[in-house]
């Protein structure tokens, strides 16, 4: 009897959780294809027939295409720069046993403990001095600074598991350290690079606070700050809200559905060491 009650309770809880997860996502998707009246009258009904006006409006009013452009440039450039700089730093940290490199490694790692807020406020000044405030490169360099630590950490720990014998034989054959790094080491880091790309890419794409203040109001926006500004003033315009919500999330959700395993392991690898 008690076991039965417990089982019913567990099933109720499970159903409730599933509803809590399905319902908001379902609501966002179906209502993106409805006009304002049907969103208010029948919020849970399927869109019959589905309309695309909301998306047309989003492209026009929120200028989704230019937002996509900015976000793609910022995310890709940050990832490429972080990937190369962090992995080459990790090469030294993982292979050299000198004390100075150990100290430097700890200095770089301690960056992981610094909240982004502490960097953002003074960065307004440093970026201004460098004439980078309000520009895409400014935001890209900001991300390189804030996310370098975690990337260096993941690459270094991963590289320590890669055997040195390959490098040694290449070095005996007369290959320079640059060649060893780019032709032998870097390709071996593929799975670590995948983790770095996935979770940093997701963080940067979804980020909100730094782009809002580093890019500023007028000089280009990312997908998140762009839809926030487009929606912000009239939050009750739900047809526009849902179209923007879908457009901002579609690229990353589609990637996720295709690369589920890599996403889950990449994001866990990143967060565990946050």
């Amino acid at each position, binding site marked *: 009897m008690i076991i039965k009650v*417990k089982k019913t309770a567990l099933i109720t809880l499970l159903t409730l959780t599933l509803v*809590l*997860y399905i*319902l*908001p*996502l379902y609501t*966002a998707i179906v209502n993106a294809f409805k006009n304002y009246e049907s969103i*208010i009258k029948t919020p849970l009904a399927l869109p019959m027939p589905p309309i695309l006006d909301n998306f047309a409006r989003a492209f026009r009013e929120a200028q989704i295409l230019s937002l996509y452009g900015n976000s793609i440039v910022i995310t890709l450039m940050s990832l490429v*720069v972080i990937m190369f700089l962090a992995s*080459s*730093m990790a*090469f*030294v940290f993982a292979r050299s046993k000198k004390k100075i*490199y150990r100290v430097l490694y700890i200095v770089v790692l301690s*960056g992981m*403990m*610094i909240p*982004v*807020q*502490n*960097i953002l*406020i*003074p*960065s*307004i*000044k*440093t970026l201004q001095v460098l004439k980078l405030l309000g520009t895409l490169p400014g935001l890209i*360099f900001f991300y*390189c*600074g*804030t996310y*370098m*630590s975690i990337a260096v950490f993941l690459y270094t720990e991963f590289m320590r598991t890669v055997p040195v014998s390959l490098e040694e034989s290449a070095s005996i054959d007369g290959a320079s*350290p640059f060649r060893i*790094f780019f032709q032998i080491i870097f390709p071996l880091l593929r799975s670590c690079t995948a983790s770095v790309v996935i979770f940093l890419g*997701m963080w940067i794409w*979804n980020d*909100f*606070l730094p782009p809002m203040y580093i890019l500023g109001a007028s000089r280009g926006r990312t*997908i*998140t700050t762009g839809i*926030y500004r487009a*929606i912000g003033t009239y*939050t009750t315009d*739900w047809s526009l*809200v849902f179209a923007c*919500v879908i457009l*901002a*999330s579609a690229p*990353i*959700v589609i990637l*996720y*559905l295709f690369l*589920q395993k890599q*996403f*889950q392991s990449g*994001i*866990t690898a990143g967060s*565990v060491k*946050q």
Partner: protein
Amino acid sequence: MKKKFNWYNLAFLSPGFIIFTIFLIIPLLLSFYYSFTNWNGLSANVKFTGLTNFRFLLKEPMFLDSLRITLVITALTTLLLNAVGIVCAAVLNQEGSFYKTGRTLIFIPAILSPVVASFIWAYMTQTNGGIINTLLGAVNIAPVDFYRSADSMVRMVSGVISWAALGFYTTIYIANLKSIPGEIYEAADIDGAGRLRQFFSLTIPMLRPAIIINTITALIWGLKQFDFVRVMVPGHIQTVTIYAIERAFEYNMFGYSSAVVIVLLLLTLFVSLIQMTIMNRKEIDY
């Protein structure tokens, strides 16, 4: 030969370290410096004011209120994410397409931008026409006004934050569950321990590593909250970050704002310190 190799190390290290220095170390040092000044973000005229900012913020009711709200959000989300995360992990860590779909589904909010999740939930939680209240109405329950008071908004936002991050925490718990050897459960079965007893006496202790990591992550994440509160209840309640950002960018009090985020830094460092103490302690072996 040895000296030559050192040059290579320098070549590998310096580009990354220079970027790290310019865009992290220097701003961080400036952050400490500005916290002792009256810098307004614009003028070059920065006056050293000693501890004035810190003395002021300790008596500022709005700061203290933002600190209280941040701590409540941190406590609520840490509790929810870990308690619900463990249960979800235990349930979803099973074979079969139903559980696989569940694992996929629960992770989707974790990859959405907080801005997106906030907009969706702003719609769901409306008092008039919100989905939650529509459904409650369908079973004859009076509508709930989630926006009726600051405390109510804090609870609602904590719920939404936990909704968004749960997949993340569940995934880490599932990874930990998979590392527990099945034999210990077989032994427990033979000893006649029931499922619930096994959960509390075996599973929970074996989840110690994930519990530590998830608690620390949730604490630090909670202290830094900005996006959800800013998008869902702008102007109603403030976290420390929102308070600091507003002082800096709307009131041009960059010096004071730097002092506020130093408090945030000290809080997160305190949590990290606890983490290191726990992690360095000898692991209990089962």
